[in-house]
């Protein structure tokens, strides 16, 4: 593509620029949440010209000034700030021509090379020999750093626009990244509870996982450390003990009647298959049977089962979700039926597939998009789906800290454990109610409905009457002025406050970071960051306003505090107040520095109204939800699902559950892309060749639980078009049009949907004679019978006849 030349090449050695790193997955936009720009989606540029390259000024404004300089640098680098004597003094957006000026200021810095790196990169990463007074603002692995690198490339004339396009584009045709996801601690707990048929005490609390963007399920961060491996062992042994104390109920067989060894093998297939969310491979089966035999020989059947169970529960097949797919030959990997079932179940329930989902995976029919979607609907309606929704809300809004935040018991004696529990119950019921009722993001932000125990209602000063649910919560319409929406719930307000007072900073940051998706840097070093001391002569707002008057602080705090002031009508423990001490409440404020949501407001209800109407906030919600359910913070990966999700969210006017179905329908859900696993090689000579073979077969070819005799029918499939082979009978009656759609394909098989359309003027009892490129594994909405080289499909009783101009469909899966 074209090389940018609009910035003149700098003096000096043109060869000294270092090679850029590949940009995929380090994208520039959404990490910073300039959502309006992100709304442009995968194309990353003008809609009507996909090859367009932003001008330098556009690029600077959108990627350098907006996300980086204005928020992270301008706080100090301004005419009055700490860095007023530095070579980078930036103008604020209230000064005429600030973009041009700021662009000019950065160019010489970008072109100044020290060693092989630009001053413009060395300073914010604090790698300059003289240091950076502002400390480390960006690490080199921060996606925003890539924007600065691009800017240097533009400034030094070493920039090719197509690279940027790559960075902004989902270059995977919408497929998800091919990766493993270790079960997070909640998924683990739910999965073992389901395996054992009842909630089980693990006997150990697992080492907390690394948190990324507030979420505890980021796949890149979920690894097994030595400590966690020991904890897994401890838990697995505890659960194995539990299992053998009630051994017979967990056996699919009778060790006396069937023989111990045979029964152990059955147990391994059954329990292991459920634990791994797929049938075991031959190599796996023989490994576990080997362990069983060694132990059983010494200590008998039950001990053998006990240690086998303990091993299965520590196995990678259990601990990792391995929805890796099977290569389709076009660079993608399509999920196998068992992988689809697992992906769907963890998406919606945070748990392994239940028996009916497993059955649909075993016979392959889950690969039928209609079946998959019907299952998605079924699981969404399942009461277990609620826990996953609440978990997202907890992590998105930081509500999971409610139990831990400390409040001064002298100031707030009323906030006891039971009130905290009731606050959590209130927020959870509210979120669940909005979600399950088909509610929207706007409802979440503005609905005055709530759920309170009488005790909590009294605490808030709210009247509550009516029928209580089993835990004592009553549906309440909150009185006007007493707050509405999740932002004014006690749980939200209490987690975002200080031990002795409200906190405009914490509450403002909540809005800025979690609803506008703009991340704020920590205060730079060398500034006085002490919180304003409690002073009875001043209101909280006055204390914070004074505190932030300083020009060094104002750069950032103008983005935070005016949002936080909206909440001043609520104290540190979530109660509505009309006075702050003796001071009247001023809860007016302003949203600043957004792409399209700026505006003034008085009180949190008006703020919530502005947020609810904001396109940016909707895009931010989609981003937050994606980070959670996809378990990734990789902007390149997130971009691959974003278009479908944003479209669905927009079309449904922000309906929360619309995202789940949109994701299930998307290619991201079914397809994976990634480097092809290379074979071995580095793993020592020749050991375990058996496992290579079996691991390849661990998915699709097992879709009927049986990997045998699959191979030979492949040749017959080449003809593809089924028309001329076989007998004289046509493939379908006259007036019937047959369309075959391959829904998923992997090396060992495929699943297809066939649409039968009646183009005539009278009802037709249809049939379809197809030359299948493999052995039929199963079919649905149809009855199949072999007929020479072809297979005859006719409808079931309910779809055997098609009305004029109507259609029906059926599906099948094949093994080659």
């Amino acid at each position, binding site marked *: 593509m074209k090389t940018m030349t609009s910035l003149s090449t700098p003096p000096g050695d043109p060869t000294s620029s270092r090679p850029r790193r590949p940009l995929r997955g380090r994208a520039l936009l959404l990490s910073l949440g300039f959502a309006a720009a992100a709304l442009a989606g995968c194309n990353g540029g003008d809609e009507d010209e996909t090859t367009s390259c932003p001008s330098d000024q556009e690029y600077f404004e959108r990627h350098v000034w907006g996300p980086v300089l204005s928020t992270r640098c301008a706080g100090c680098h301004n005419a009055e700030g700490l860095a007023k004597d530095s070579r980078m003094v930036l103008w604020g957006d209230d000064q005429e021509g600030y973009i041009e000026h700021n662009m000019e200021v950065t160019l010489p810095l970008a072109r100044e090379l020290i060693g092989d790196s630009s001053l413009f990169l060395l300073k914010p990463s604090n790698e300059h020999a003289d240091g950076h007074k502002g400390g*480390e603002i960006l690490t080199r692995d921060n996606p925003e750093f890539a924007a600065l690198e691009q800017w240097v490339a533009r400034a030094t004339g070493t920039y090719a626009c197509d690279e940027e396009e790559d960075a902004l584009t989902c270059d995977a045709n919408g497929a998800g990244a091919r990766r*493993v996801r270790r079960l997070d601690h909640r998924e683990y707990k739910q999965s073992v509870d389901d395996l054992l048929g009842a909630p089980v005490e693990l006997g150990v609390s697992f080492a*907390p996982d690394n948190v990324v963007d507030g979420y505890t399920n980021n796949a890149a961060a979920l690894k097994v450390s030595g400590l966690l491996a020991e904890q897994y062992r401890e838990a697995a042994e505890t659960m194995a003990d539990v299992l053998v104390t009630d051994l017979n109920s967990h056996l699919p067989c009778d060790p006396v009647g069937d023989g111990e060894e045979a029964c152990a093998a059955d147990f391994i297939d059954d329990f292991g298959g459920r634990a791994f969310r797929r049938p075991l491979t031959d190599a796996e089966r023989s490994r*576990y049977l080997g362990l069983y035999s060694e132990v059983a020989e010494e200590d008998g059947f039950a001990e053998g089962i006990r240690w086998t169970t303990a091993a299965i529960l520590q196995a990678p097949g259990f601990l990792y979700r391995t929805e890796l797919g099977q290569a389709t030959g076009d660079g993608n990997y399509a999920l196998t039926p068992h992988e689809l079932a697992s992906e769907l179940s963890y998406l919606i329930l945070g748990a392994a597939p239940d028996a009916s989902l497993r059955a649909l995976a075993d016979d392959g029919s889950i690969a039928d998009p209609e079946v998959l979607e019907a299952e998605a609907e079924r699981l969404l309606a399942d009461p277990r789906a609620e826990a996953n929704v609440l978990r997202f809300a907890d992590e998105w809004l930081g509500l999971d800290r409610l139990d831990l935040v400390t409040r001064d018991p002298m100031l707030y004696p009323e906030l006891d454990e039971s009130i905290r529990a009731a606050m959590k119950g209130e927020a959870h019921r509210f979120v669940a109610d909005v979600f399950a009722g088909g509610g929207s993001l706007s409802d979440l932000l503005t609905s005055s409905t709530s759920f309170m125990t009488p005790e909590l209602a009294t605490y808030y000063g709210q009247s509550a009457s009516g029928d209580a649910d089993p835990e004592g919560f009553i549906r309440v319409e909150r009185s006007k002025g007493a707050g509405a929406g999740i932002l004014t719930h006690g749980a939200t307000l209490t987690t975002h406050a200080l031990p002795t007072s409200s906190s405009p900073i914490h509450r403002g940051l909540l809005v800025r970071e979690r609803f506008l998706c703009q991340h704020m840097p*920590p205060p730079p070093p060398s*500034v006085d960051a002490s919180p304003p001391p409690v002073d009875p002569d001043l209101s909280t707002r006055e204390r914070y306003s004074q505190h932030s008057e300083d020009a060094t602080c104002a750069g950032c705090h103008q983005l935070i505090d005016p949002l936080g002031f909206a909440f001043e009508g609520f104290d540190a423990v979530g109660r509505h107040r009309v006075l702050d001490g003796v001071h009247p409440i001023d809860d007016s404020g302003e949203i600043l520095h957004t792409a399209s949501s700026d505006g003034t407001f008085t009180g949190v209800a008006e703020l919530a109204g502005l947020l609810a109407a904001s396109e940016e906030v909707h895009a931010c919600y989609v981003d937050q939800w994606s980070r959670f359910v996809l378990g990734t913070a990789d902007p390149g990966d997130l971009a691959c699902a974003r278009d479908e999700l944003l479209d669905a969210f927009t079309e449904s006017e922000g309906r929360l559950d619309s995202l789940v179905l949109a994701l299930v329908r998307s290619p991201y859900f079914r397809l994976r892309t990634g480097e092809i696993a290379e*074979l071995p090689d580095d*793993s020592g000579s020749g050991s*375990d060749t058996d496992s290579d073979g079996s691991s390849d077969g661990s998915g699709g070819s097992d879709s009927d639980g049986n990997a045998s005799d699959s191979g030979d029918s492949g040749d017959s499939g080449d003809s593809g078009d089924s028309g001329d082979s076989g007998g004289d009978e046509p493939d379908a009656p006259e007036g019937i049009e047959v369309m075959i759609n391959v829904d998923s394909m992997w090396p060992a098989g495929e699943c297809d949907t066939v649409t039968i359309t009646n183009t005539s003027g009278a009802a037709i009892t249809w049939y379809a004679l197809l030359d299948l490129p493999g052995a039929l594994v199963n079919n649905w909405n149809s009855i199949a019978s072999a007929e020479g080289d072809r297979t005859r499909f006719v409808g079931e009783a309910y779809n055997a006849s098609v009305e004029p101009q109507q259609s029906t469909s059926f599906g099948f899966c094949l093994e080659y």
Partner: protein
Amino acid sequence: MARTFGRRELIRGLGIGLVAAPFVDLLARPRSSRAAGGGTATRLVVFFSPNGTVPAHWTPGGGEADFTFAPGSILEPLEEIRDQLTIVSGLDFFGADNHEGGMAAMLTAKGAVGHESGGMSLDQYVAKELAAPTRFASLELGVQTSAWGGNNQTRMSYSAPGQFVTPDDDPAHVYSRLFGDFVGGDDAAAKIKARRARVVDLLVDEAGDLRRRLGAEERPKLDAHLEALAQVEQGLAGGGLGCALPDAPAALSPYDNSAFPDVGKVQMDLLATALACDMTRVASIQWSHTVSPMVPSWLGISDGHHSLSHIDDSNVAGVANFVAAERWFAEQFAYFVGKLAATPEPGGDGTMLDNTLVLWAKEMGDSRAHVCKGVPFVLAGGAGGYLSPGRHLSFPGESHGKLLVSICQAMGLTNESFGDPAYGTGPLSGLSA
């Protein structure tokens, strides 16, 4: 046996050298990286408490040997172990400031791949280089470090750049991990361990299978898993307990703010016992984390520690509260050091403290300024003769990487730099005896 051999070959082949190496090559390992001769410590313990300090209330008065703790100052509770201390003031973290930067640089000195320390934290580097034949290469104990999960605020130990080592915050789990195998006696323990080792064999095969299905981007996850299994296996090696089995600690709620002192005390006791039983030679105890929200309510203080740490001098009562909280941490340090001083060196002369180096580290200097200049360190113990305690030394403007080099050398290692060598190499002059 052939099977086990194949698996170890596999681990080695995968490049899982760091932790597997001490296990695989225990006997064959050349010890060239350890300095010859005496005068080195047997054990290293890192003790962390958060949120910087107020230098005016921390810095001792007097001179090198006749240093004094002003009444009411932060270090005054160390008076009783004064003769065991080497107080080091004035050091800067180069290339780092602020909470997160300080937390990351404190034990790494901004190291990266290609540097001598490879970007590891001090404890992990020493553990790797020592390669001691103990059940655990290192132990990381925490006191309410993880309520926020793992991130650049809550972690200080790094096994590689960007790779956190997670501390164990739960005393009950620490106990079962250290001593659980021995509760039923040595014979039962040996059988259980053999079974567990057998399961680990199987898991290594399974992890290898999954690893082969992955592309290069994803393989490091399984590499980490295999390394974790190697650590588990190391913990299963060895014979009997070799010391008295301690009682299990009372049940505590690890993240209850008011339980902070109790959890901390149990963790310190468990750690001292683990060291006495020679379960490890390198350990850390991390009290909360930078930006700690811990409220020292047991001192009658109701503000969070982070807020306290940023109070400026105009708020006299607030600063006094912060100093009180810091004095409380000094008492904990004195308790732990005193415990080692009261324990005879197992199988040797003197006390455990004589052969131990305990490092009290913080992540910032003056917390009110968010800077990592003049970061305070307190060393305790004789370090096997490497240190001659009872001194206060000041190294204004020097890189704290040099202190980390000194500590490595106290542990008998020979590295000349720690972290980014651009900030300085060699040990602190005049620190060793």
